[in-house]
C-alpha cells in the first residue's frame, strides 16, 4: 500500500486574536498520485488549510504528514518534497523569467547544471523561451501565471500545491497550464488544487473535498459525488452543499 500524499489527523488551528476560520479535529487523507480539488466558498478555510499543509502556518494540535513526514518536525526537509504555486504572483518582477528560475532553483538546493537544464525545459514547455530575457514585470497576465507555475515545479516536486493557478488568464494560457499539470500528474506528481473556477476544476480533478467553516462537507471521487447528489456539474453540487447566501 502506497503512503498517502497528505494525512491530516485531528488538526486544531485558529488565528490568534481573530474570529473566523478555525479547524477542530479536522481529518483528511489525499492519496499519492491524485488530482485533488479543495473547494469551498470564500472564508471556508481553503487557503488556511493550504498554508497549514505547506508549513506557512503552525498548527496547535494534531498532525499533518506529507508522504509520511510530519511537517512540524521536519519543516525544511519536507520543503524539498513539495512545490507551491501561490495565488499571489510570487516572483521578482525586476528579474527576467530565466533569472527568476535560476534564483528559485538555487533556493530549492538544485545545482547549477540542473538549474540550467530545468530552466530551459520549463521555458520551452510553458512557451516562454522567446521571452526568457525580458523582465517579468513586462509580461502579460498569462505569461506571469506561467512563470509563477514554473517556479513551483522547478525541482520536480512529488506533491504540488496550487492556489488558484489560472486566475485572471486567457483561455489559451489556461489550456496550456491545465495540460501541463495533467502531464505532471501522469509523471507521478500529486496535485492539490484550489479554485473558484469550477469548470476548470471538474476538468482537472479526479477527487474533491468541499469544505465550509473549517469542516469537510463532502469528500469523494468527483463522479461519485455528482451521482450521489444527482447533479450534472460541480456548481450545482457546490450550491447544494454550501448554500446560496452571500459569503465574505
Amino acid at each position: 500500500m502506497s503512503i498517502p500524499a497528505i494525512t491530516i489527523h485531528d488538526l486544531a488551528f485558529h488565528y490568534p486574536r481573530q474570529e473566523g476560520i478555525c479547524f477542530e479535529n479536522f481529518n483528511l487523507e489525499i492519496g499519492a498520485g491524485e488530482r485533488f480539488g479543495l473547494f469551498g466558498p470564500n472564508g471556508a478555510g481553503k487557503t488556511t488549510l493550504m498554508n497549514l499543509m505547506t508549513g506557512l502556518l503552525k498548527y496547535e494540535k494534531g498532525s499533518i504528514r506529507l508522504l509520511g513526514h510530519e511537517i512540524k518536525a521536519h519543516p525544511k526537509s519536507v520543503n524539498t518534497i513539495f512545490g507551491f504555486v501561490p495565488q499571489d504572483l510570487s516572483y521578482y518582477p525586476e528579474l527576467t523569467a530565466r533569472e527568476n528560475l535560476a534564483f528559485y532553483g538555487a533556493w530549492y538546493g538544485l545545482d547549477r547544471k540542473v538549474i540550467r537544464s530545468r530552466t530551459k525545459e520549463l521555458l520551452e514547455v510553458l512557451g516562454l523561451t522567446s521571452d526568457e530575457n525580458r523582465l517579468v514585470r513586462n509580461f502579460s497576465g498569462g505569461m506571469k501565471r506561467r512563470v509563477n507555475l514554473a517556479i513551483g515545479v522547478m525541482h520536480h516536486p512529488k506533491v504540488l500545491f496550487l492556489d488558484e493557478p489560472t486566475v485572471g488568464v486567457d483561455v489559451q494560457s489556461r489550456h496550456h497550464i491545465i495540460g501541463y499539470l495533467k502531464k505532471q500528474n501522469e509523471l507521478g506528481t500529486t496535485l492539490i488544487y484550489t479554485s473558484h473556477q469550477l469548470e476548470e476544476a471538474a476538468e482537472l480533478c479526479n477527487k474533491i473535498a468541499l469544505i465550509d467553516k473549517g469542516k469537510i462537507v463532502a469528500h469523494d471521487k468527483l463522479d461519485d459525488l455528482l451521482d450521489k447528489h444527482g447533479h450534472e456539474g460541480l456548481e450545482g453540487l457546490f450550491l447544494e452543499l454550501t448554500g446560496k447566501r452571500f459569503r465574505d
Partner: protein
Amino acid sequence: MQTLKATIIKDLKILLRDRVGLFMMFFMPILLVVVITSVQNSTFELVNNNKVSLLVYNDDNGPLGRELVEGIKKIGIFKMQVTDSAGYVLDISRQMHEKDALVALMIPPGFTSYIQSKADEISTRALSDPDSAKQTPSRPAAISDSMKMYYHPVMQASFRQSVEGALRSAVQVIQGEAIVKKLYEAVNQKEVPADLENQILFGQLPISEIPVSRSGSRSIPNASQHNVPAWTIFAMFFIVISLGGIMVREKNSGSFIRLKTMPAGYLNALFSKQIVYGMVTVLQAAVIFTIGNKLFPFIGLPVLHLPKDIWALVIVTVVCGYCAVNYAICVGVYANTPEQSNGFGAISILILAALGGLLVPSFAMPAHLQKIIQLSPLHWALEAYYGLFLEGGKLRDIWMNILSLLGITFLIEGITLYGLKSKNLI
C-alpha cells in the same frame, strides 16, 4: 553557499536596475554633504574672514564715546557705520534692515561723564588709606541710559556672545584707560605719556590657538573636515529609506511567501541584504570622501584631507555601513507598511543624528543627555571619524569607538532576530 550567492546576484540585479533608486542613494547624499559643507563654510568665513556689519549710534557728546568708536574699529571684525542719533528703537530696526546690519550699538548720552566719574571714584579709593577705603563710596555720575546692543534674530547665541564679548572688551579698554589716567595724574601730577598708556592698555600677552592632534599636525581643521565625515554618516544611515521599504515590500509580497516554503532559510536573504547594501553604504562614503578630497577645491570649498591611517578609515566606514544596514533591516522587519518604515526610519535617523552630535556637538548637550547619546550608533561613528579626520589618530586611538559601534550593531541584530521570530518570519 550557492543559495547565498544566488541571492546576492538577485539583489544586485534588482538594485542596479532601479536607476532612480541608485540616483537617490548616491546623488542625494552627495548633494547633502556639499550643501551642508557650503553653508557651514560660509558661517566659518563670516566669523573668521568676513566682517560683521555694525551700526553705531553715538549719543554721547564727550571724547570717550568717540574713543569707544575708534576702539571698536581697531578690533577689526566689524564693518562699521557711525551715526550720531539713535532715534527711536523702531528707527534702529528700520535702519538695520536698510543698511543690512546684523548688529547695532547705542552709546548712551553721558557715557563719557559716567566713565570719568567712575574712574575718579576708583582712583580715589585706590589711593586713600585702607580704612577710608571701607567707607561708603561716592556714587559715579548717573547715566541716562545703559549701552544697548541690538541684533538681528538670525544671529545664533554663540555668535551673538562672541560679538558682545568683543564690544565689551572695547568698553573695558576705555574704562581701563580712564582709570589709569586718573591714577597716574593723582600720583605724578601730570598726564600719562602716550607710550606708557599704550603699553599698559594694549601690551597684553598674546594667546595662540593650536589645534590638538594625535599626529602632531598643526593644521587648522576646516569646515570640510568637520562636516563631510559627519554628514557622510548621516547619508549612510539614510539607507533606511530605501532598504527599509524594500524589506517591507518583499515581506508583504508573494515572493516572500514562496521563499518561506523553500528548503533554504530566510536568513540567506538577510545576509545578502547585509552584503549588497553594506557595499552600497561603503561606496557612498568612498564617493563622498573622494569628492571632498578632489572636487571641493574646484567649487570653492576647503579640501577634505583624508586621514593618514587609511585602513582605519576603511574599517570605521565598513562597520558604520554594516550598522546602518542592520538598522534599516530592523526597521523593515518591524514595519508593516512602507509608509511606516519610511516615516519611522527618517525621523529616527534625525533623532539619532541629533543625539549623536551631528547637529550640535555632544559636549554641548545637557548632562541628562550625555548618557543617552551613547546609545546612538551615529555618536560612536562620528567620534571614530573625528578621531581620524580632526585629531589625526590611528586605529589604536579609535578602537573603543569601533567596539561600541559594533556592540550597538549586534544589539540591533538581536532585536531584528527577535522580530523575525515573533512575526513567524524565520
